[in-house]
């Protein structure tokens, strides 16, 4: 075995660590461990002078392994790896011991916390001895992009990418672009015309030479990996096209909920109970009227239809409250004398300008009536002649605690948004995961909302979760920016901590192929062994733990590395060589 010269660096983190851990004592103790050449403590290891200290030590003392005991690796692992690289050492010859989040922040006994810090650092020292040099790899990027979905999100992303002169393939399932936004009349909260906004965008997309639009088309199968995807597009007429591209944006959106199954609202039974989609159409046509062509006197708008109820969808569809307020405004301006009722569960007028929109709407003599969305939905009933209205809505009004009747001639159901039927098909073709609500799952819900766990595949707009137009447009532009940055670089770096198969041990059982969540493993028929595509592999380790013969090695998480880390944690100092031999 080569000579291991280990440097141990213990951070005070100001007082964050030093207050609860006797850093100086730990530094002295660590110096006594075999192979540890240097043991130092410093106020802020992550600072430039802190990093320079490590770089200087590596160069002057010929260190070959580095351990930094400080905060969480999530915070600074990359920082220190870069420092190693700068000093000419492979960045994977590094291990971090988390003595802040896992120690000083969570303990109150200084003596015990100091002992724990020693154990954690010892574990890191034991592990780092077995670290191997790893190299991150680069993949060339095909500059074309495939966008699935021709709604406002897909259109925006296409324009953004094509605006940089890159090729875009825009796939739309229906016969026209625009998606759900094409069915809107005005938009909340500023009452801009959706049609006018969209018309401009669609004209631009249609005339852009870099955007190739496939209407009435579907993506059959996508093969390949980031930078080098290949797909088969089939149109309704049976025409098949093969495309090559480097990145994918999935912008398939959502569809509206069908209230036919909800008996209490009488949709389908009463001709003047309509959905919000139908009412948008009525507004686009310009005349608010009942089915018999007369003007309604009482208009009731029922919120949360299909949303926030465990029998339908538990999530909030997010766009309906503000849309309902928009309807109230539009009805009020067209029928100034009408009685307008908003039957709502909670008013969720979030977003810029929307609370103000709610406030201004509530001053237009619109009756807001609250119902219990969880337990008792309103019920639409037939009325009698003496009621002087077409229908009555029975309602347990929550704010007054009274059971009341609401007169209605036209009832608008604010239908929620739900996943499209083909969500699984698209997920399968693109390698995306879907959550319990059948929305695509992003890489990180807070910090990486448009990337997915598959490199080169991005999600944008409502297919990730219900969204309004500005949110969808922002995501479209974000995804486009991400793709343009990889195109600009020409290549991307992919993870080095992948797994690989020892072909001599592999028995060809294919267990790993079945359990790999990224479809990164294939079977080599000629050799009868498994093969890991390291570009698709995320290094999750599932295959390594599933392999019955131990043929799969997960780089940077080898058995000997993990065992020696455990030994260190348990404060045992005998050689790991025996275990490695066995």
């Amino acid at each position, binding site marked *: 075995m080569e000579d291991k010269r280990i440097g141990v660096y213990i951070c005070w983190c100001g007082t964050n660590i030093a207050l609860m851990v006797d850093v100086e004592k730990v530094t002295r103790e660590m110096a006594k461990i075999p192979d540890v050449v240097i043991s130092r403590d410093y106020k802020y290891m992550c600072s430039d002078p802190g990093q320079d200290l490590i770089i200087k030590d590596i160069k002057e003392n010929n260190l070959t392994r580095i351990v930094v005991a400080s905060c969480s690796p999530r915070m600074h692992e990359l920082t220190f790896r870069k420092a190693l690289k700068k000093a000419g050492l492979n960045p994977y010859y590094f291990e971090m011991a988390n003595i802040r989040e896992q120690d000083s922040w969570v303990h109150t006994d200084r003596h015990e916390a100091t002992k724990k810090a020693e154990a954690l650092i010892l574990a890191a020292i034991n592990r780092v001895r077995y670290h191997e040099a790893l190299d991150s790899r680069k993949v060339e990027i095909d500059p074309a992009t495939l966008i699935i979905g021709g709604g406002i999100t897909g259109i925006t992303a296409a324009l953004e990418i094509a605006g940089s002169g890159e090729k875009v393939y825009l796939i739309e399932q229906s016969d026209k672009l625009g998606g759900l936004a094409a069915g809107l009349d005005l938009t909340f909260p500023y009452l801009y015309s959706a049609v006018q906004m969209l018309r401009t965008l669609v004209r631009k997309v249609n005339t852009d030479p870099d955007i190739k639009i496939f209407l009435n088309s579907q993506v059959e199968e996508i093969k390949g990996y980031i930078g080098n995807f290949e797909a088969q597009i089939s149109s309704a007429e049976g025409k098949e096209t093969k495309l090559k591209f480097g990145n994918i944006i999935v912008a398939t959106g959502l569809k509206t909920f069908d209230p036919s199954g909800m008996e209490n609202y009488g949709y389908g039974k009463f001709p003047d109970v309509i959905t919000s989609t139908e009412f948008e159409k009525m507004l686009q046509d310009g005349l608010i009227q009942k089915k018999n062509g007369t003007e309604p006197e009482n208009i009731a708008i029922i919120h949360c239809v299909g949303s926030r109820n465990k029998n339908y969808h538990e999530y909030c569809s997010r766009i309906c409250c503000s849309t309902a307020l928009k309807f109230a405004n539009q009805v009020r301006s067209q029928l100034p004398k009408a*009685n*307008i*009722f908003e039957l709502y569960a909670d008013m969720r007028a979030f977003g810029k300008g929307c609370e103000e929109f709610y406030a201004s709407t*509530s*001053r237009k*003599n619109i*009756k*807001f*009536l609250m119902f219990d969305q969880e337990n008792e939905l309103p019920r639409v009933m037939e009325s009698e002649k003496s*009621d002087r209205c077409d229908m*009555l809505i*029975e309602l347990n*009004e929550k*704010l*007054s605690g*009274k*059971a*009341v*009747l*609401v*007169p209605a001639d036209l009832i608008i159901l604010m239908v929620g948004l739900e996943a499209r039927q083909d969500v699984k098909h698209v997920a399968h073709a693109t390698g995306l995961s879907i959550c319990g609500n059948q929305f695509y799952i992003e890489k990180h819900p807070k910090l990486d909302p448009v990337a997915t766990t598959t490199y080169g595949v991005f999600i944008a707009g409502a297919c990730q979760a219900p969204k309004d137009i500005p949110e969808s447009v922002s995501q479209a532009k974000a995804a486009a920016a991400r793709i343009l940055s990889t195109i600009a670089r020409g290549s991307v770096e992919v993870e080095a901590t992948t797994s690989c198969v020892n072909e001599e041990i592999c028995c060809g059982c294919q267990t790993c192929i079945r359990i790999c969540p990224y479809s990164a493993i294939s079977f080599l028929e000629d050799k009868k062994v498994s093969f890991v595509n390291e570009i698709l592999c995320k290094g999750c380790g599932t295959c390594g733990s599933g392999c019955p013969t131990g043929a799969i090695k997960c780089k940077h998480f080898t058995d000997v590395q993990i065992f020696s880390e455990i030994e260190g944690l348990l404060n045992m100092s005998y050689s790991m060589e025996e275990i490695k031999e066995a």
Partner: protein
Amino acid sequence: MKERIDPRFYVGLEEFGIKTAEWNECFHCGNCTAICPLTEKGVLFPRKEIRLMQMGLKKELHACTEPWLCYYCGDCSKTCPRDANPAELMMSLRRYLTSVYDWTGLARKIYTSKIWEYMLIFMLAAIVLVLYLKFTFYPAAEGQWIGADGGVLINKIAPWHRIHIGDWLMAGFLAFLLISNIFNMWYKVILSDKSVKIPFPAYITQFFSLVWNFFTQQKFNKCDDSKIYWYLHLFLMLSYVSLFTIIVFFLKWFQTDIIHPFWHPQRLIGYIATTGLFSGIFYFIFNRFNKSRQNSKYSHITDWTFLVLLFLTTATGISLHIFRISGMPVATYYTYVIHLMCLVPMLTIEVPFSKWSHLAYRPFAVYFANLKKSAIILPKRDS
């Protein structure tokens, strides 16, 4: 019975002081109910009344006793995050409910039309003048205006037994109107509420609360942190009740030609009651001018009318007394008629139809609320 929502209920109620632009701002955070010192289990106001207004549930609103249980400390309006001014709505609802209980419809006219209010006041004053001239005042007996000793002979000009007849007629008329309005209130508050059934013994066991609250306004005392308001109101109320009782039942003892010494109960009671009335009137007028307290910030025209009539009645009453003891017969006799011309319209307009009806509605509201608390709750019936 489920009540139907009436989105146009508020139309025409602005004249009572019900400001739609204010209560419509309420989004039901419940701050007002939380801060109200009088809120208790089962009596959750003023949010309840705001909601009923917003929903236009007329019947439910008419069945509310809560506006009468509120004494307008104004904490709710001071702390309302939406400036919905719930305290002022409660005040306006008291005016509105007075007109709801009044079956003659005059209360509504008085509250919503200045012309009606002043026309009625002047009409009553004119009737009093005519009746006085016709039945009590004897111009022919001019020679008898002055007594042998040079004193004032009030009982010659306005004999107490004749005035008594007028008093009893008026008191009977007022009692009839007030009692029938209370009956109407009982019908709307208790009988129309199908969810409760009041056991008969409760009417007797709860009766004490009616009397107690009439004389003490204990709820009012709980409400406000400024005790002086409650003391002055109590002093004014007791003075008014004593003078009213004396005039209606003991006028013979009160209206004498002999001038008693200062310490005589007849004079002492009169002075104390006058002090009570004046201190209350001046305090309320001062507040309404100053707008220093939350409850005096917004004055309806009827609030001023009431204070002015009360002031004129008290001022003419005490002037009448001064003229009499100073031996100024002519001044005494003219002031007497002016006093009556203020007193009669004040009582006839204010007691059954306007502001002063609260003397009955407030204690009865406590009584009815207590009855409902002791009621048997019936299961909800759908129809």
